[in-house]
């Protein structure tokens, strides 16, 4: 009888293909994209939903996002290509739908995040850092520079420089960004760790004293905390609210504005090494979600310990109710500013500030990285002019797409910081971005039926639940949880669009979708006149 053998593969001399960004780098990229040190949750939710439980709300957001992140793992392994959400939706729903949704709700609306990241850098990164350093060292010039950073002129200048620096870094080669990302990663982790330590090692009464001293040095006010608390109460803040479950549930969509970005690495799926390996994508997508949600919960607990419910409500009133007395140096009491006030040491302030500066720079970078990949994919599909997908022969990067996005961001930066009504007009940003991810969850649910061959060739095809593809189960749950949060942005007053008293922000959302549709229709018409159909870019040829 023949002896059993463990046969090996026979190979010959043939070329191979190797990819780039490691799964670990992609994991870091997602954590940083979620802006772990910039969560609005802490200054938005406490007064918008008084009586809500921050920690529980963040956990709800995590639970709602988890099926979406897992469903993305199927999409990312089945279609490991750059352009992520656009590729998924165009292959499952068709090119017109995929292009319109992702172009309008991502490419156009993410311009708002370019402007926001400049604002973050100026107002939450540079301003508190320099003000803090000025106060602790007694150097007035530093305080003055910090104050200028938070002024309109300062924000616009810093925002444009921020975008320009990002443009220069990214067009010089993606690997330069990946290299810098490690500096950002450790810098941001150090900053976050220092904040946690500062909050955990103090108590509310000591913290209030520190805040009083800091505000006195910056703004020359006395009894800052008591004054701010009284003003907040006058503005409608209840400092002893009963627990409110629905309010807690509504914290989830706010925390989701951070956590939803755990899937953003799919936009450069074509550059991630072994992107088609299932466990890699689970690590990148779900792993980054777990870590970030954990850190957000930890910060919520730390703030509760360090400044107490009163401190959190006072900080939130400055943002939500516009209570001027609850700001320092014209800046909202974001966790970093409070931590800087507690630090009392230039070194600790520098560590915190450095982390915020790096994270805001990272955010503008990821705006460019994701959207330019989408634009290149759309251009290669013939839905944007060929010019967008040209790669620079020396730098090997899509310079034209980067340049176009930079130029498009300048008017948005100026408007964001000079037009009073701009923020109200653009309240749809949270809805628009969330809608893209929710629709991608639906694309995942339908993948086995609408792109059968692609699904069957993917590693996730082997997972089923009661005979139903597991991706369909997760995608459906994700579509429902995402739909719940996106719907909240539409209809709940304390969130997104519904905050506005008029219909204009809704029409602006519709307008961007119409623009996307028009671009699609125009390119489709031009292509038809050239003798080709854009629909061919998405149609799957039957092998038989």
């Amino acid at each position: 009888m023949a002896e059993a053998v463990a046969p090996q593969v026979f190979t010959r001399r043939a070329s191979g293909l190797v990819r780039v960004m490691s799964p670990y780098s992609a994991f870091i990229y997602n954590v940083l994209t979620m802006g772990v040190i910039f969560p609005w949750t802490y200054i938005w939710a406490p007064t918008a939903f008084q009586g809500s439980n921050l920690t529980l709300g963040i956990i709800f957001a995590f639970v709602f996002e988890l099926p979406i992140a897992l469903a993305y793992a199927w999409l990312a392994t089945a279609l490991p290509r750059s352009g992520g959400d656009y590729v998924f939706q165009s292959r499952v729903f068709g090119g017109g739908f995929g292009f319109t949704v992702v172009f309008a709700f991502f490419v156009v609306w993410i311009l708002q995040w370019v402007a926001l990241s400049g604002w973050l850098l100026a107002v939450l990164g540079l301003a508190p850092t320099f003000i803090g350093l000025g106060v602790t060292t007694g150097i007035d010039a530093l305080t003055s520079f910090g104050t200028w950073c938070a002024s309109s002129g300062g924000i616009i200048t810093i925002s444009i420089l921020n975008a320009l620096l990002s443009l220069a870094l990214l067009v010089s080669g993606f690997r330069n960004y990946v290299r810098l990302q490690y500096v950002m990663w450790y810098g941001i982790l150090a900053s976050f760790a220092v904040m946690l330590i500062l909050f955990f090692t103090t108590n509310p009464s000591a913290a209030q004293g520190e805040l009083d001293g800091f505000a006195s040095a910056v703004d020359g006010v006395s009894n800052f905390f008591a004054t701010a608390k009284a003003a907040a109460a006058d503005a409608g803040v209840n400092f002893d609210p009963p627990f409110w479950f629905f309010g807690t549930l509504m914290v989830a969509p706010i925390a989701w504005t951070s956590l939803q970005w755990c899937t953003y690495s799919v936009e450069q799926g074509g550059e991630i090494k072994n992107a088609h390996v299932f466990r890699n994508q689970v690590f990148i997508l779900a792993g980054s979600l777990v870590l970030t949600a954990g850190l957000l919960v930890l910060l919520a607990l730390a703030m509760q310990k360090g400044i107490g419910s009163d401190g959190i409500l006072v900080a939130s009133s400055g943002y939500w109710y516009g209570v001027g007395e609850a700001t320092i140096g014209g800046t909202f009491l974001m966790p970093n500013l409070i931590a800087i006030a507690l630090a009392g040491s230039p070194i600790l302030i520098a560590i915190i500030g450095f982390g915020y500066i790096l994270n805001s720079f990272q955010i503008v970078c990821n705006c460019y990285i994701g959207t330019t990949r989408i634009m290149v994919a759309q251009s290669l599909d013939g839905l944007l002019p060929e010019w967008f997908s040209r790669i620079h022969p020396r730098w090997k990067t899509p310079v034209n797409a980067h340049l176009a996005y930079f130029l498009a961001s300048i008017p948005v930066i100026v408007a964001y910081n000079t037009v009073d009504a701009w923020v109200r007009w653009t309240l749809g940003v949270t809805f628009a971005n969330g809608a893209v991810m929710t629709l991608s969850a639906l694309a995942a649910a339908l993948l086995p039926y609408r792109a059968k061959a692609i699904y069957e060739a993917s590693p996730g095809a082997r997972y089923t639940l009661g005979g139903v593809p597991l991706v369909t189960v997760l995608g459906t749950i994700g579509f429902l949880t995402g739909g719940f949060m996106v719907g909240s942005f539409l209809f709940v007053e304390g969130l997104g669009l519904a905050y506005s008293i008029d219909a204009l922000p809704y029409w602006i959302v519709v307008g961007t979708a119409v623009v996307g549709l028009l671009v699609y229709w125009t390119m489709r018409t031009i292509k038809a006149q050239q003798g080709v159909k854009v629909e061919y870019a998405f149609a799957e040829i039957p092998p038989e």
Partner: protein
Amino acid sequence: MRLLRRKGKAGTEPTRIFYASDIHGSEPTYRKFLNAARFYEVDALVFGGDLMGKLLIPVVRDAGGTWRASLQGRQHHLETPEQLREFTRNLDTLGFYWKEMDPEEYRSYEGDQERIDALFDELARDRLREWVALAEERLAGSHVKVYLCGGNDDTDAVLGALDEERFERVVSCEERIVPLDDEHVLVTVGYSTPTPWLTPRERSDEEIGKIIEGLMREVPDPSRAVLNFHCPPLDSGLDTCMKLDASVWPPAPVIENGQPVYYGAGSESVRRALHDYQPTVGLHGHIHESRGVARYGRTPAFNPGSEYGEGVLRGLIVAIRGGEVVGSQFTSG
């Protein structure tokens, strides 16, 4: 009877070409390639090289009527003929060859690269013959021709199957000038510049330049030529890939400052040909991850990339008329 439809001349309908390359033995991808003629309503199917698969999976019979095989680092134990069929169907999708053998036969191949290469050639030649027959069958009665050639990964012994007889719909176009329509010709060169993988059909850039020059001398009007050159032009963005260290086997990425180094792996001779002759269009493959378009004066050059391993056919539809590209569209089907 006219073999070619009156197309492609100024004032007439454009000639629509579907181009794809680098399918590396993948059965469903090749079948999609043939079906692209009807699906995309094109007049010609042009293949850009690299027909052959890269792996051969020995499926070893165990005593007791079961089978063992290794795939993607995992040992598979196939217990029923249905499992075997499903497994080999997956191998066909991936573009891998397979051969059922008993343990003694398997052991006789171990370590004997010459015999393994010969087995590769035998299986690849058989598959190519089947593919040619399939093309003849599927395109019979249509005006569409399929132009096949090799790339750097194909061996001459296998490509010989394309010239074993004269076919009705299949045109063997390697290192030839063949008519595409009433006005345009297809000029094909399947070689690549040297790679770290030491593949069968590599030539120095100078040699490729001489082959191109020799062919282009015979082209009556270079502006009406479609250049089907497997290797993309140097530093065009169509040739960007990771730099590999050829001193180790298999070649490993070159890492500098903790990051992989990218470079252009294309051909200067191809770049010069596009620049100097200003042909109608350049069609290229070779670098799977560098899908894109570049321009040389009036001439666009395309690389549609390749995802054959996922059973996805990446391609390009290009409409030409009067020596010009009037429309183009990348596809992913």
